[in-house]
Each structure stands twice: as C-alpha cells, then as structure tokens.
C-alpha cells in the first residue's frame, strides 16, 4: 500500500469527526474520567433533547459504568416541575424557562436555576421530499400554521396551489403537523414564527419530534416543524426567510454559526445550583462531559451542532466548575 494512502487512514482515525459536515472546535477539552463517581443521573424534560441526553448518558456510562441513568423526555414543560419537586437532577429544555416557571423555582429554593447552553439546533420547517416549494417567508409560515396571522400575510394559506406550484400540487391541500403544548418546540415556534398567535385547530398534534417528521414523510401535502436532528431522507427542510424580499436561508450545517438562519436556537439543560455552592460530583462530571470533545461529538451524532470552545468554557464557568 502506498504511503499517502496510509497517511489518510491515520488522519481518518485521529479525527473521525473531521469528515462530518461540521467540524468540532479543536479547543474543546478531551474528557478525562476522575475517581469516585457513582450515583444516579435523572433527567426529565425536552423531547427534542431526548436522544441527545441519551447519547450523553451512554457516553458518560462508558466512562463510569456504575452510574445509573434514567432519562425521560415528554416535553420541555415537564422539566421545571421535576426540578422544583427534586425528581430530576437535569432538566433539558428546548426553550428558555418562562417567568412563571423561574418564579416557581425561586419560591422553593430562593435562587434561579442555572441554564447551560449545550448545543445549537436549527428548528426546521419540513415538507415532504417531493414538495417543490422553493422557500417560505415567516409571514407565509405564519399564515399556514396560525389562524390569527399576526405577521400580516393577506390571505389564509390552505392549499399548495397558493404558492404557484405546478401540476398535481396546484390542488393539493396543506396538511399540518405540530407538537403538543407540553413541547418547548411548540412554544418556541409560536413565539418566534407565529408572533404569539394561536395555532389552527387543524394542526395534528404529535407526541414526539420524530412523529412530526414521520407524519410529513407519509403525507405528500404535509408540513411540520421539528428539530434538525430528526431529519430523515423522506422529508426536506424548507429554506426560510425572515421577511419578503430577503434571501431564503437553508437549514444546512454551514448556516449554523453564521446567525443567518432565522430559527437557530440553543438547546438548554437546567440544573439546580445554589449560587456559590459546589455542585454534586456526579452533576459536575456530567456537565464537564457534555462540554467536552466527546460530549460535543455526541451532539454531531444526533444531528445537532456543537458549541464552540469559548461557549463551553463560559458554560463551565457559569456552573462554577472551572
């Protein structure tokens, strides 16, 4: 075997993530296990983060096989009560906590919970893979999903023909898929795209992010919203534009850090930490793992986008770890 080929093999081994679509920040620390960690990690919260938490837990358990993990993900709204009741040590959420939720937490503990920005999601609007629509503006998406049309689109959009699509698409009705109200994605979409307007009654509310994608996959006239990590070969993420006349920005990895994609958001993990106090060793190590090279590689594996080394350092400092 020629020498150059060998070099490529070695390179591939040294940095398997280098060939993925988004490179990991080289400044992210490699996680080194420490001694004496055991106990239970209990996470309750977001469905968008459900698989990511599971991947982190699996990776963490590879370092500490004795740590027990229990992961539930029924929606971001289940995280605050679980943190307040103390039934969970981690509360993953795909939207920031609401004022009332923070207040509820403060009432019990006297301080606000700590939010860690663990990774970046691009909330995508999915259509069936055969749908030829080129792109959508926020006002159009609003008119598709909301009955209030707060963004001021002149007419209700109920048919793909209204976008001037050809052939059989001209008469195909739009079929709506969305999440249930416990979901953080539901709240995020409502706030940022629908201008806090209400969803139409015809939105088929699904129990999970993956269910939304599967709904759109099997329904040629379907449209739905979900995290980018749930994309499959059967759906297409529609390029979006904030306003009429602006360029459509696709939900592709190169847009993750430019800030141009209008629905990029941080995926958060909340923890109960008294300001100034030290975290429990198990919590501390799990957070260190999440912001390590291995943890952020798991983010890539789930289809989301990793944080940069600077952001990771900031989060670790906020948690009082470094």
């Amino acid at each position: 075997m020629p020498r150059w080929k060998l070099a490529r093999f070695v390179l591939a081994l040294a940095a398997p993530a280098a060939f993925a679509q988004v490179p990991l920040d080289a400044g992210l620390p490699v996680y080194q296990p420490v001694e004496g960690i055991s106990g239970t990690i209990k996470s309750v919260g977001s469905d968008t983060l459900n698989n990511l938490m599971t991947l982190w837990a699996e990776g963490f358990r590879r370092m500490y096989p004795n740590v027990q993990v229990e992961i539930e993900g029924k929606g971001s709204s289940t995280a605050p009560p679980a943190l307040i009741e103390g039934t969970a040590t981690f509360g993953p959420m795909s939207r920031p906590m609401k004022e009332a939720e923070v207040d509820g937490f403060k009432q019990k503990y006297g301080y606000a919970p700590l939010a860690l920005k663990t990774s970046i999601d691009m909330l995508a609007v999915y259509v069936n893979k055969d749908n030829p629509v080129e792109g959508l503006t926020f006002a159009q998406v609003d008119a598709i999903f909301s009955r209030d049309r707060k963004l001021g689109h002149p007419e209700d959009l109920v048919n793909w023909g209204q976008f001037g699509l050809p052939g059989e698409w001209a008469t195909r009705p739009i079929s709506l898929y969305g999440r249930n109200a416990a979901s953080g994605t539901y709240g995020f979409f409502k706030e940022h795209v629908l201008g806090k307007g209400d969803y139409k009654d015809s939105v088929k509310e699904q129990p999970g992010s993956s269910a939304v994608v599967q709904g759109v996959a099997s329904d040629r006239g379907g449209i739905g919203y979900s995290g980018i990590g749930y994309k499959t070969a059967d759906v297409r993420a529609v390029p979006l534009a904030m306003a009429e006349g602006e360029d459509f920005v696709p939900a592709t990895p190169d847009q993750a850090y430019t800030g141009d994609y209008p629905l990029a958001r941080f995926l958060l993990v909340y923890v109960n930490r008294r300001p100034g106090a030290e975290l429990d060793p198990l919590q501390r190590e799990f957070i260190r793992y999440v912001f390590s090279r291995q943890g952020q590689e798991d983010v890539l594996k789930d289809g989301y986008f990793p944080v940069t080394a600077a952001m990771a350092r900031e989060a670790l400092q906020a948690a009082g770890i470094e």
Partner: protein
Amino acid sequence: MSGGRAAPRRERTALFAQGEPMIWLTGGGLALALAMIAGLLALVVVQGSVTLWPGPVTRVELNDGRAVMGEVARSESVGATGGDGPVRRRLFRTGNFELTGEHFQWVADSDIRAESRPEWALVVERTAWGRFYGAPQAFLLDGRAAASDPASAWAMYEQHRLAVQRRLRERQRLESRDIGRVNRRIESARLAVKSAELRHGMGSVPHREAVARFEAVERQGLAEHARLRGRIEALNRENARFQLALATADGWEQAIPLADIVRACAPNRLGLAAKWAVYGSRWLEFLSGAPREANSEGGVFPALFGTALMTVVMSVAVVPFGVMAALYLREYAKAGPLVSLVRIAINNLAGVPSIVFGVFGLGFFCYIVGGWLDRSFFAANLPNPTFGKGGLLWSALTLALLTLPVVIVATEESLAAVPNSMREGSYACGAGKWQTIRRIVLPRALPGILTGTILAMARGAGEVAPLMLVGAVKLAPELPVDAVAPFLHPERSFMHLGFHIFDLGFQSPNSEAARPMVFTVTLLLIALIFLLNLVAVLLRARLKKKFVTGAF
C-alpha cells in the same frame, strides 16, 4: 285458506327453532375475530422477523457520477413529472453517518447508470455512529497495512476478532465490577460524612470521624483506581493496534478500530447457512444486549427484563389484596346496600382510564410517599431523589391498583361458584368459619382466582400509559436486580417493552431505521405476555389437580 297461511309461518319458526341462522351468525363472528387476530399476528411476525435478516448490499452508480451503496429498505413508484410513466425509486440504507450526515438516501431508477452487488460489500455494525457500508481495503496492524487486498484483510479480521472481543469483555468486567466496587465504597463513605453532618452537625466528633474514614477510603480507592485504570489502558492500547480499513462507495477511506466493531459481514458472499448464523447472532444480541445509540441499535434486554419483573412484582402485590377483599365481601360481609355500593365502586374502578391511575401514582406514591421516605431515610442523598421519583415499586403498585378490580371480581365469582352445601357440610362437622374458608372454599375457588390473576397479568404487562408517569423511562440500562446488596432495587426506574415501542415509533432520531424495530419489539412483547400466561395456565392446571382431587 287459513291452513295455507299457516304453513309458511310454521316453516319460518322451524328455521329459527333449528337455530341454523344463529350458528352462521356466531360462527361468522368467530371467524372474523380469528381472521383479524391472525392478520395482526402475521403482520407483526413477518415484519418483526425480517428486520434482523442480513439483506443483500446493492451498489448503484448514478448518472451524475456519484455512487451509492447500501441495503434497499423499501421502494415506491411515483408519477414522473417528465411524463414517461411511473418511476420506481428505492430507499437505500447507506449508513456512514459521520461522512455523509445521512443514514438513508432515496435513489430513483431513472438516475441509475449501473447496478451491481459487489462481492466484498461489507456491513459493519459499530458501537457508535451506526452502520458502515464499504469494501475492505486493508488490515492495519499498528497503523501499517498487514494485508492489502479484500480477501486477506478479511481473513486477518476473522483471525483477530475474537481476541479483541475477549479484551473488550475483560475491560468491561474491570470497569463495571472492580471499579464499581471502589466507587461504591467511596460514595458510601461520602454519604456517611453527609449524614453525620446532618445528624450531629458540622465539626462534631462523629462527623470528624466520618471525615477521617472518608479520607482513608478515598486514598485507598484512588490507589486501587490507578491500578485498574492502568490495566484498562493496557487493554485499550492492545486493542487499538488492530484496524480494518474500508473504502466507501464514493471513494472515502476510513479505518475502523476492531474494538468498535460489533459485527461485520459481507452479505453478498454469504450462503444461506451463514446468513442464518448472522441472523441468529443478531437475535441473540437483540434479546440479551443493552441498547446503544439512543435506543436505535443494540438490544432490548433491560426492557424485556423490566417488563417481566414489573409484572411479577405487580402480581405479588395485587393477588393477596384482591383475594382478601373478595373473601371479606363474599364470605364475611352481610349482604346489604353498603356491600352493593362497594361492588359497584369496584366495577367502576375497572372503567377508570388507566392514565388516571398514572396521575394518582405520580402524586401519591412518588411525591407524597416517596418524598416522605427520602426525607426520613435518604436525607444524605438529597437533592438526588431515591424514592421520590418514578420507580419499579411505584409502577408495580400503580398497576396493582389498576388490575385490582379484575382480581376481586374473578375471585368473587369463583367463591360464589363453590356450592353452599359444602360450606354447610363443613360447619356440620364442627369447623369454624375461617377453617371452612381455608380448607373447603379456597381450594375449590383457586383455579378461578388464578384465572383472575392471569387476566390481571396480561392487562398489566400490556399497559403503558400510566407507566410513563411513574417509572418507565427511555434509558435505564442498569437493571433493577443486580449483584449489589440489597440485590432488588425497587426504587430504580426501568425500561418497558411497551414504552420502548412508543419510543422507537415516535421519538427515535433515526426513525427510518427504528420503524422495523417497532415490529420486532411488539413481537417480543406478545411473546412475553404469552409466556407469562402459559406459566400461569400450567400452574393453574397443576393446582386444580392437586386441590380438587385431594379434597375428595
């Protein structure tokens, strides 16, 4: 005239008296029910069993110069926009997620230039990143090519595979058993410090003693750790020497460490017997392994075990209470409006939606009872909850409540079926009330009671909705039973096959790959319930023989 009118009427009456139409009606109903059940079972069995079969790997070259290689997952035909009739397109499972960012890819037949089934198309199942499809290029030993054509690279892989697997097992044993023991010692010393602090105050004598003990244990533990880590490192180093280099269809080359490979096969080269061997080995992993990659790969053993154990604990909880309640209602209580009211309430309980029981279980068992237990006995663990969250015990008790009416009603029916003359005979011989119940009534009623238990178990094992609130979780690889005292850990959350089906179907990141698994897990759940029922039926048959014949 009147005789002529009467004749057809007699004929009609005769038809119904014979019962001919009713035979057809009831028989038809049975046939329809059987056909639906058979259809459902056939769907589940067929879909569930083909999932793990190693299908052929197809390589297609596209008109735009790209090449795609993978297993064909399914195909569909679409009306072409060009107007030359429907076009077939196929969904390829292409894997190689770290290179392409996709697990699956659609390819239309009209885009294909050439199609082949390469002999050396390898399907590599890995511990991380999902499957890899590629052709073996070389076998790397310490980073140098020790073999550089497919056949000899594969031969070297086969040669080194078992040794690598053995070292992996050895590493796992060191990690989970030996390091685990050290970690638990340190953790329990740390908790002792915390509880001494809570009970006696910071700086008190017991607290200082606990701190000293903790420091000693920690020092000793760290030394032990360093030794074990050294051994693990040595195993890792040895394993890292072996890599298999693969080339993907579109020209990328990737070296995969042997330690990351769960299973590799070249389906296009395999004969039928070898395919069955791969199939069997996949089933074995599926039944006995732990899930990987957010449940989309690996096995379901924790879910299988969790379902069975939860059902058994539930039966142990529900049967004594149900039987006692029914005994009191039937044998001791005086019939009257109050007893009727209780019966109506029990029957109504059977109609309450199961999710309501889940909400009750969460509020009462987890928050109130569990929270109290935590504050009283596990204060040192706080803020990490011990019992104050969903767990096996709370799930079993919630389902016990749910299935209580089934047991009570079945027991009452079977008690009522015991002839009164037998009770009276017993009294006449001088036996007391309890003696009569124990010696005469219960043995006769036992088969009926067991029938109620079987029904309750079947209902409990198939129930998912309340469990989502009180303890079934997406990932809990640690089993509720293990070799660490006290062996049974009723406070742990667990995985459940029913919830696993929901998770695979609606929450998996790689939903395309997870969908066939839904059928496989369903098949498994049905088989498990069948098995539990079978055990109960056999038990009932034995008891029937023993008690009923023994009574006479």
